């Protein structure tokens, strides 16, 4: 995954500015901030509130509502395991247990060296080729334990 830059207020304001004139832009702005900085820094909240004429509570409410927006730095690689029904039917729960052991983190956690975050998601749209796993934006299908280990072997 691309390296993230440390928080810069001016960079954040430039992102907000790039959406000027459009409506309902808080989600696109938050996506861009997360892409740039790796997570949504607490310092972003008052900046966004002021720029978009919202209360800080409203901004906080939006950030905390959506699973995608993270308040802390994530691992350099993010591994998402599908835990929904179609993948359950072909052994996703066993894969979850295996992945936790193999990566040494529990679901939702980040490894101590910051290399990897393991996350459970509900459906990656690859339901005929489960269990499905997404590593950053790369989708993998029919991931058994052997395939998982080969994917995990590439994580630095």
């Amino acid at each position: 995954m691309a390296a993230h830059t440390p928080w810069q207020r001016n960079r954040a304001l430039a992102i907000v500015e790039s959406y000027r004139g459009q409506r309902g832009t808080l989600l696109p702005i938050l996506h861009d901030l997360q892409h740039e900085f790796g997570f949504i820094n607490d310092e972003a909240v008052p900046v966004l509130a002021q720029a978009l004429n919202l209360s800080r509570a409203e901004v906080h409410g939006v950030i905390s509502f959506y699973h995608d927006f993270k308040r802390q730095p994530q691992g350099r690689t993010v591994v998402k395991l599908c835990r929904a029904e179609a993948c359950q039917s072909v052994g996703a729960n066993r894969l979850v247990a295996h992945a936790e052991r193999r990566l040494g983190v529990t679901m939702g956690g980040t490894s101590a060296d910051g290399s990897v975050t393991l996350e459970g998601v509900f459906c990656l749209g690859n339901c005929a080729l489960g269990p499905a796993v997404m590593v950053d934006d790369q989708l993998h299908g029919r991931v058994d334990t052997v395939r998982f280990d080969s994917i995990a072997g590439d994580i630095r």
Partner: protein
Amino acid sequence: MTEAMTAEQITLYVPRDAAALSMGADKVAAMLRIEADRRGVDVRIVRNGSHGMLWLEPLVEVATPLGRMAYGPVTPDDVAGLFDAGFLEGMAHPLCHGLTLEIPYLKNQERLTFARCGIVDPVSVEDYRNHGGFAGLERALTMTSAEIIAEVTESGLRGRGGAGFPTGIKWKTVGDAVADEKFICCNADEGDSGTFADRMIMEGDPFILVEGMTIAAIAVGAKQGYIYIRSEYPHAVATMREAIRLAYQQKWLGHGIHGSTHSFDLEVRVGAGAYICGEETSMLESLEGKRGTVRAKPPLPALEGLFGKPTVVNNVLSLTSVPVILARGAKYYKDFGVGRSRGTQPFQLGGNIRHGGIVEKAFGITLHELLYNFGGGSASGRPIRAVQVGGPLGAYLPPEHFDTPKDYEAFAAREAMVGHGGIVVFDDTVDMAHQARFAMEFCAAESCGKCTPCRIGAVRGVEIMDRILAGTAPADKQLTLLEDLCEVMADGSLCAMGGLTPMPVRSAIKHFPEDFHRPAAAIAAE
């Protein structure tokens, strides 16, 4: 080099669909290029959408004088052998399935929405046009708003997102509303497990959605559209944005569409991992940049939708059904289907199924036909014990119900729903009590929190299921409590999240009661 000296260029097709990529399609395409260059063969590699025979992905096709020959599933290691066997001339190979369009899985379908998917280059306007694309929009441009809406109403098209509301009536409501601006919002927040048709059509034939939305815009008088795509679909987001860029370039979007006086602007917005945003009012909140909490209805979004303006909210599969209705007429479309379920539905076979993928058929096909004639039974080879139809809020059905025809009313009569056309298959190792617990767990995780039956009820539901699974309390009493809770959730929730979570739970209890009466002795064994 003169043209006469050039050996004829051969066209290969390797899908760019996310499912194909998940099985290594990019590596296969790269290896085909390397091997062709090494042998000095002139090949053109088109990255098409998937035909929807997902167990064959990556499916490599070769254009031959007889038609496209199919080889799959191909791994990078197979590539040299394919060249050796003469696959460029369509010669035999263990991975060869003959002509793609003659493969029974595909040949026995009735493809209206997915007619071009897998065939065309998804990001070529020219290819789209050459395969009948934009014919519906061209006709719509010659019609009045009322005529377009009448055509869609007459076709019998109903919302493919799950609710099955007649699309033409929704359009008429928006069309009749008086406002300074109106919106078309496409719900591409396809979060139901077992569904992937929205993703596949957006990745394999994105212009059909541009066309369908533009027709809707002309019909109701909207100038701005949004496609709300879930963030779990980065490939669909990229393909859709590329298609929109090309459509602007070639005057199929923007000011003066195709030389007419109509204008329509279209934009992709990306969700942020909230299942509830597939609920239409919650999606509108999210598009406005707010928490995705559900709105009370009325007011209907058709009258007070996005930013309080009249808004058409339609699913991807509804909007992508529109071009063919306009191009070939309402009657053509209506002749497919049964009862009040007209037209076709791209059904999606997922989970523990041998031949998973897209099966577009007219309504009326039975579950049994889909599961066995197309799906080929379970992937594990064990008996199919249950299928969940219509997503995480849909019912679990046992084999005794596999004769149910795919029809909104027939499913409703069996306390089930067609939903978005997803079918998830489980073999006989499934524990239905665990599935019922998961339904509650999922609701607890994804509830927007607005109403109590859903927000708190789901948590209580998980607790009851934990007691049943542990066998620590008399099952009968716990099941009575659970039924009581289901009733409160079903009757007291604002939207389908809390309202339909009881459907998988109750159906699991009704059809698989043996899984819910767990002897205390079984606990130790687990």
